[in-house]
């Protein structure tokens, strides 16, 4: 059984989806469909347990149909795939528990596409050749287009069509890059490409990398390729928002990590990636600061956190890549937590605008969990965000400019989340402290939120357990072995973090003073059209390829 294990990851949700759609024809009992979906989402944990024991000795690879390696389809599980499969499984089951109560109409169709989405995600992290990556990417985004339209209002269609145009364009760029790779090397296998990519001519390398960068940029929402993200993520149903921000965006980063290990030998590559990462980190925060919609604020922070991940990976040092992978995983947990909490707030108040929530102290558990999420995303010491931020800051010793951008991002993050806390919970409270009534979210909402908050706290308190077991093997599989001797808890850094919090709250008050200017900027940004953004994207790509020096060879 062990040698067929990679296929089971793919087939379990796929078969469950087919069975679910058949039962949907015969009976309308949602109970049966939910049990099928739950069992197929719980089964991967058993497979992961077996894989984890096997990974100590070797990476697992499986030739589909018995065709041998450079030409056949292979599925590979190494340490990097393992950690992402684990995150997918955890987020899948938790968002499923949340969706039991949340999804009310067309349950059968929703779970059918949900399971297909999980199958596609597992496929991305399993596939060992680059064309299969394209297939599973497309399966994932097609399922997400449909799942976004299950959202509550008609704007979900707008978000979906924006994502569709840009996502399809990303797939086409990716396919063009695959075409150039095949024309130059005659290979598609990721493992064999590592040896043959450095041998091809520099001009071809630059063209391939630029096309791949376009695909990765659109899929993982690097500025200026980000225009679809806020609309799509903020109009999707809450469990799908959590999955989109938690793991689907990370699939683009995963692709970037894989093509990094090809060893492209391009001049200025490090500076370009760091610059794009810094712009993305700061731009996402600026986006978040001008919004009033709780889901739009949370979605904008996905952009900025992806920027931080790219800064970490863009240093191309082992500690930076470790920090990047670690932040990728941590972001999946705390962003899912923030989205699920926002969902609980919207479920109780029926409103997305933070100025009209007026919750007061009536949702104490949600408030506590939300604060855990905020402290994690801001990188305050005992929570998981600070682990990865510390690692990334360590890798940036030679880049003071990027480091200052990172600090600015932290300040903006604190400011925009303090805005949510201040407006939703503290300001305008009609219920006074002495006679408040507890009106908490349903239990099925609270279970996944508590589990995610526990994970955030667990990784933060015991960083070495988590890092040594999962993250460090993943970064060894990409670059050379090194010993991590970073002491995480230092009084100076704790002081710096709380200084950032204080400055953040100060900046929030400054921004609230100039709210007319903020409204003006928001109107300007909302008027940017899809066509203009695509044109801007292509101009950026041409500029990037010129910076790489495509004409010099």
């Amino acid at each position, binding site marked *: 059984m062990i040698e067929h294990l990679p296929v089971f990851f793919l087939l379990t949700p796929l078969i469950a989806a087919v069975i679910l759609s058949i039962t949907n024809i015969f009976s309308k009992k949602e109970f049966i469909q939910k049990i099928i979906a739950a069992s197929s989402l719980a089964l991967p944990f058993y497979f992961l347990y077996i894989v984890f024991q096997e990974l100590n000795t070797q990476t697992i690879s499986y030739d589909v149909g018995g065709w041998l390696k450079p030409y056949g389809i292979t599925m590979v599980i190494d340490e990097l795939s393992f950690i992402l499969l684990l995150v997918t499984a955890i987020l899948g089951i938790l968002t499923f528990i949340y969706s039991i109560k949340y999804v009310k109409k067309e349950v059968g169709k929703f779970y059918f596409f949900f399971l297909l989405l999980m199958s596609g995600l597992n496929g991305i992290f399993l596939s060992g050749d680059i064309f299969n990556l394209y297939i599973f990417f497309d399966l994932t985004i097609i399922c997400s287009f449909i799942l976004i339209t299950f959202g509550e209002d008609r704007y979900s269609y707008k978000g979906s*069509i924006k994502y569709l145009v840009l996502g399809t364009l990303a797939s086409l760029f990716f396919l063009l890059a695959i075409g150039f790779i095949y024309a130059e090397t005659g290979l598609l296998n990721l493992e064999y490409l590592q040896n043959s990519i450095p041998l091809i001519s520099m001009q071809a390398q630059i063209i391939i990398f630029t096309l791949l960068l376009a695909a990765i940029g659109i899929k993982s929402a690097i500025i200026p390729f980000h225009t679809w993200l806020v609309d799509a993520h903020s109009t999707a149903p809450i469990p799908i928002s959590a999955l989109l921000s938690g793991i689907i965006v990370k699939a683009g980063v995963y692709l970037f990590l894989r093509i990094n290990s090809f060893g492209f030998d391009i001049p200025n590559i490090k500076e370009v990636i760091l610059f794009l990462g810094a712009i993305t980190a700061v731009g996402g925060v600026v986006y978040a600061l001008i919004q009033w919609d709780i889901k739009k604020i949370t979605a904008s922070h996905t952009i900025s956190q992806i920027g931080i991940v790219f800064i970490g990976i863009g240093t191309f040092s082992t500690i930076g890549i470790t920090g990047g992978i670690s932040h990728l995983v941590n972001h999946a947990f705390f962003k899912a937590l923030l989205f699920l909490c926002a969902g609980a707030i919207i479920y109780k108040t029926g409103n997305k605008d933070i100025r009209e929530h007026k919750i007061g102290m009536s949702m104490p558990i949600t408030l506590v969990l939300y604060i855990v999420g905020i402290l994690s995303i801001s990188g305050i010491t005992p929570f998981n965000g600070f682990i990865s931020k510390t690692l990334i800051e360590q890798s940036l010793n030679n880049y003071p400019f990027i480091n200052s951008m990172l600090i600015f991002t932290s300040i903006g993050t604190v400011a925009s989340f303090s805005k949510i806390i201040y407006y939703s919970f503290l300001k305008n409270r009609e219920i006074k402290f002495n006679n408040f009534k507890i009106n908490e979210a349903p239990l099925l909402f609270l279970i996944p939120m508590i589990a995610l908050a526990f994970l955030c706290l667990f990784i933060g308190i015991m960083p070495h357990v988590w890092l040594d077991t999962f993250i460090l093997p993943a970064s060894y599989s990409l670059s050379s072995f090194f010993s991590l001797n970073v002491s995480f808890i230092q009084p100076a850094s704790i002081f710096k973090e709380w200084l950032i919090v204080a400055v953040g709250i100060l900046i929030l008050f400054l921004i609230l003073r100039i709210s007319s200017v903020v409204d003006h900027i928001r109107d300007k940004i909302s008027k940017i059209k899809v*066509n203009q953004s695509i044109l801007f994207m292509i101009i950026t790509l041409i500029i990037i390829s010129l910076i790489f020096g495509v004409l010099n060879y």
Partner: protein
Amino acid sequence: MINGINIGIVLFLIGLYGIITNKNLIKIIMSIGICSNGIVLFFISIGYVKNAFSPIIDSATTNVVDPVPQALMLTMIVINLCDTAIALAITVWIYKKFGTINIEEIT
């Protein structure tokens, strides 16, 4: 200069131009179709060998075209069909909800 690879890339760029300049959703979807057709032509031309036979082993034919790009493109055409179908379905929904298919007027 005029070979399948170049024409494929030119078709891709024409499709890209269509996506940028058009505002009608149906026309944007058609432009995406042109883009993907360009890519199909590009891939098939990579595997093309002049005066070669189809890659079926029947006798001692040794010079055959590369079958891999053709296999890849069969898969890609199916995926692209899916993509287009969903895009058109969402366009129908958008017309029902918003009363327009101009991408700039959907607000």
